[in-house]
């Protein structure tokens, strides 16, 4: 039986299985279509799906300050952190003193979602610049909250909306968030006692990490993506991919929950 689903649905469903009951998931707010889709909309659907399947006690933190929003009341994807749209959405808590009074540093957040312009083989992420820092070829917004995502959250899902050679590189030009230099051991030596990237999710595949060796590896390749396409779009060697499995297709009942209950108007995942 062949079920029809979109790439966004594929990613959301696979992500949802990563979350355990009782955990707390953190999304920030990105803007611009692809970034917003990957670090806000897909994670929200994935977490809501987890709540409706195996993790009813999962807490969703939306835009850094809205706890367990009623997503069915969304009329559009909010594009500002502090405007009426988020202020007025029904929810179970507003962390108004976020973030400086809150215990994110203590480990309140089980996992988060982040993105950058580059990620490398060790899982380091870059959101600052391409080229020399003091006169860069491309200057981006800055570190923002990524160093915190990569050190104080329990784990980080790196969401990359574009799978291109220049973004998946041997070594990032600027380390905003630290991956696994010399593995978990290396993190510890740097004083990083928790957290780090868990998966890297792209339109073509899902990466995970050999956390001992400190090396990224392909966990699964999305259906209809060729091994050659994947390697050609990636700036570092992927090694032998012959035994790589396909990313698991969504089940019918999972798609039904997404389409009928979580995102009936296609505000989050679109109607593509």
């Amino acid at each position: 039986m062949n079920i029809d689903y979109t790439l966004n649905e594929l990613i959301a469903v696979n992500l949802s299985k990563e979350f355990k009951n009782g955990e707390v998931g953190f999304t920030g707010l990105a803007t611009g279509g692809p970034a917003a889709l990957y670090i806000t909309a897909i994670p929200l659907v994935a977490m809501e799906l987890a709540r409706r399947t195996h993790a009813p006690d999962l807490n969703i933190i939306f835009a850094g300050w809205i706890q367990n929003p009623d997503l069915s009341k969304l009329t559009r994807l909010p594009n500002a952190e502090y405007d009426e749209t988020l202020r007025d959405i029904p929810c179970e808590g507003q962390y108004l003193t976020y973030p400086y009074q809150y215990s994110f540093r203590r480990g309140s957040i089980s996992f988060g979602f982040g993105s950058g312009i580059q990620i490398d083989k060790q899982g380091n992420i870059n959101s600052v610049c391409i080229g020399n820092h003091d006169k860069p070829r491309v200057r981006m917004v800055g570190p923002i909250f990524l160093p915190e995502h990569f050190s104080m959250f329990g784990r980080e899902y790196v969401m990359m909306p574009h799978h291109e050679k220049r973004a998946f590189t041997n070594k990032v030009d600027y380390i905003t968030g630290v991956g696994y230099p010399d593995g978990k051991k290396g993190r510890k030596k740097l004083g990083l006692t928790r957290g780090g990237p868990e998966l890297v999710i792209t339109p073509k595949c899902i990466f995970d990490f050999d956390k001992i060796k400190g090396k990224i590896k392909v966990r699964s390749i999305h259906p209809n993506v060729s091994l050659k396409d994947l390697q050609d779009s990636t700036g570092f060697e992927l090694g032998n991919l012959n035994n790589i499995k396909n990313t698991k297709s969504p089940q019918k009942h999972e798609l039904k929950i997404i389409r009928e209950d979580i995102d009936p108007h296609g505000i989050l995942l679109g109607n593509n």
Partner: protein
Amino acid sequence: MSFPKRSKKIINLEDAVKNINKGDTIAIGGFAIYQRPMAFVREIIKQKIKNLTVIGVTNSIESDILIGANSLKSIETSYVGFEKYGLAPNFRNYAEKGKIKVIDYPELICIDRFRASQENLDFWPAAGLGGTDIVKLNKNIKKFLCPITKKILHAVPAAKPNVAIIHALAADEFGNIISPSYKNMAQSLDILISRSCENTLVTVEKIVSNNFIKKHPNLIEIPNHRVKSISLAPFGAHPTSMLGKYSDDEEHWNEYIRASDNNESFKKYINKYIHSSKNNDDYLNKIGGAHLSSLLQVDTQK
């Protein structure tokens, strides 16, 4: 389609107290003589849990009664006293007999110790402690130099309570706690300690619906995932006050202080109000409906 159900965090006060073990280090919510989780404290005494350490900021009857009931081995705080009701009788008596270990910290530093725990730091950098006996007598405070300017500082150890106990206005069954928007020290510290510890046990005046929570999301400063259990305990701060809800019970404070005059009368007090009370409802009946009603306040301030 039927979805899995969320877990409820409501348990009996009796069961909640079972989370406290002999020898634990506990933080008790409230401030001085305000909004202390007294129903919870009474149940600790009822269950005869011993050898506890209280880590506090300013303490009063919630610790004094534990001392008088031989439940405390030590207390780390800036103050044990009853404010307008004078000195804390059991604290003073036990301290002067050397029967309780007292570790003194300044008031602000006591708060900093919880801030350190909240932020996962093992210490807090404190200025202004040099030359005091606070430092001289406390081997856990380490002198160090500011890594940037080399000024003299002291590293004060984080609070690190095993368990935190607070009394709050209301919660839903999932454990989202309502704090009033007009807060003072008692509520501010409650929020802080809930963020300093993974075992926060909460008593509440009222269980409200999840819809009530959704109507007042800006009042949720202690979300369900910072809370281990919720127990219903109306008038749970009695005889301390809950500003906006009820005043402190001056008559009962005086009864307590009189009872603390000697071992025998204190035992009688503990027996009457704790050991021979079945539960919090039974306690409240002993205090009396009319008397409790007389303590209720009018509050139009949200």
